[in-house]
């Protein structure tokens, strides 16, 4: 029987990011063993140290960790919003057997902007980071289309309405302003905006934090449905193991800028190996 092994989309190799010059003592005082990502001598912060992981086509990979563990920095480096100090983020276009492999941090600013608009979509925890509150909902969703050279208002509005229906938003509210929408609806607007350019990778940064449980469940259902229907590759950051459990097939656990454990989500939740993961799982359950 012939099995199909999905290609990888993102391969992260020795990715590091630090804030501050660093000193000779940093390695002695930072990292998960010391429970600290900031050097007490020079105050440099090691946000991400030698991260390695692979994200396959159609897969949802969860990144879990406490606040300050470096998961959002890692996500922002993949989003090309933060430039790493060293390492590579290799990208391969999904569904293309002979696709070129590109090192994302090596791109120039213009190419990075075009790539970010065309191939990536991001949903933030706080809607004001992903949306412009002065524009209408339609205008916000239209931004990526306009950047991709859509120049026909009629066609743009049709596409926005399609996306609004897809994300369970009432299309008749296309010209309403975002501040008239609830928190859950704003997350759906962000998802509609992220999907507008048919991205090959969707980045989700704490998408359900701050929402009440019923709204949280609806947003998670929506993400799961989109992932299932479009076989979308997703990188999901959350400090909530419940969210990770529902969406991610594989999970990596971060602490003090380091990846301390990675594996299948079920395996990590049922048989955590690292003491920090054990603590995280026991405190969640």
């Amino acid at each position, binding site marked *: 029987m012939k099995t199909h092994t999905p290609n990888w989309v993102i391969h992260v190799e020795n990715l590091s990011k630090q804030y501050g010059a660093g000193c000779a003592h940093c390695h002695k005082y930072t990292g998960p063993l010391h429970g600290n990502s900031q050097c007490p001598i020079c105050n440099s912060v090691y946000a991400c140290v030698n991260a390695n992981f692979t994200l396959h086509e159609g897969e949802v990979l969860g990144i879990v960790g406490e606040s300050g563990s470096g998961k959002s920095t890692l996500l922002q480096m993949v989003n090309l919003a933060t430039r790493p100090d060293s390492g590579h983020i290799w990208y391969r276009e999904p569904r293309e057997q002979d696709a070129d492999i590109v090192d994302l941090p090596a791109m120039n600013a*213009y190419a990075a*902007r075009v790539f970010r608009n065309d191939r990536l979509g991001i949903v933030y925890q706080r809607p004001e980071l992903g949306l412009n509150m002065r524009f209408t909902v339609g205008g916000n969703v239209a931004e990526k289309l306009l*950047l991709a050279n859509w120049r026909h*208002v009629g066609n743009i509005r049709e596409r926005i309405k399609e996306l609004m229906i897809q994300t369970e938003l009432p299309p008749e509210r296309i010209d309403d302003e975002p501040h008239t929408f609830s928190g859950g609806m704003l997350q759906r607007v962000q998802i509609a905006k992220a999907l507008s350019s048919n991205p090959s990778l969707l980045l989700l940064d704490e998408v359900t934090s701050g929402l009440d449980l019923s709204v949280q469940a609806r947003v998670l259902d929506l993400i799961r449905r989109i992932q299932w229907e479009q076989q979308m590759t997703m990188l999901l950051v959350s400090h909530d193991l419940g969210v990770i459990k529902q969406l991610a097939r594989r999970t990596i656990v971060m602490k003090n800028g380091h990846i301390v454990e990675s594996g299948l989500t079920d395996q990590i939740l049922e048989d955590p190996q690292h003491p920090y993961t054990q603590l995280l799982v026991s405190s969640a359950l």
Partner: protein
Amino acid sequence: MSDTPEQLYNFALIDEDSKREVRRQLLKAIALPGHQIPFASRDLPIARGWGTGGLQITMAIITGDDILKVIDQGDDESVNAVNLRRLLQRTTGIQTTVNTKAATIIQTRHRIPEEMMTRDQILVLQVPMVDPLRWVEPNLERATVMHGESDYGRMWVYMYESVVKAGDLRIATQYPVIVDGRYMMDTTPIPRWDIPKLHMAETLFLFGAGREKRIYAVPPYTTVEPLQFEDYRFKTEYIPGQKCQRCGAEDTFLTSHFVVDTQHANGGHWVSSCSDSSYCDKRIDANLTIQEANS
């Protein structure tokens, strides 16, 4: 040498080093059409915001052989135009004119002359607000990055919002354009009527903002494309049947002014006339009487 107070100043008022600095930035601006170049804006004997940017450019490029024309809102005789012309004339001693065709340098605010300008002329525009992205990104640092990355999506959303809210592209002034297919540029408060004159023109256009300390340029034969949609096209101001009351021109940008008439029920009436006063005068001088024009 006469010891009149004006001649105690340097030629064109500001010192030669300052002029050289402005000229260096002008060269950079011409090399990068539409890109905003910072420059060290000098103090002048007029307030910032009254044309100091354009004035410094004119002072930096003017020579004793130049013939200068200064207009404000298309008018040669407005207070600002008269004051700037007098300052430049007194500090350089050069010849001034109101005839567009005769001028080698034209300093202007809010208008481009109606008459086609040639390759031997330079148009200097006074700019109040430099960055078209100011409407969508008030943070200058972030706007600079957006220009660097050609990240004009938000400005396009601004245009889209204009269509959604007003039913058409209702941007009356400071209409955004893309210069040479690369940089988005503010066209200064010139009316939409004048924007097509920037496209592939023979003339060099220099833009100076003294208050914001920025210079930019549109060199000759450069593409200048207004932002527009396939179903909502850029349009210039035009009212069917519009006509200048003085010269009868139907193809010029018009301004309205109130004429007092005690016999009239409302105490007077509004009339339209050419904004470019010298062009209007020229048409009348060419044996075209008002009656003939109106007939």
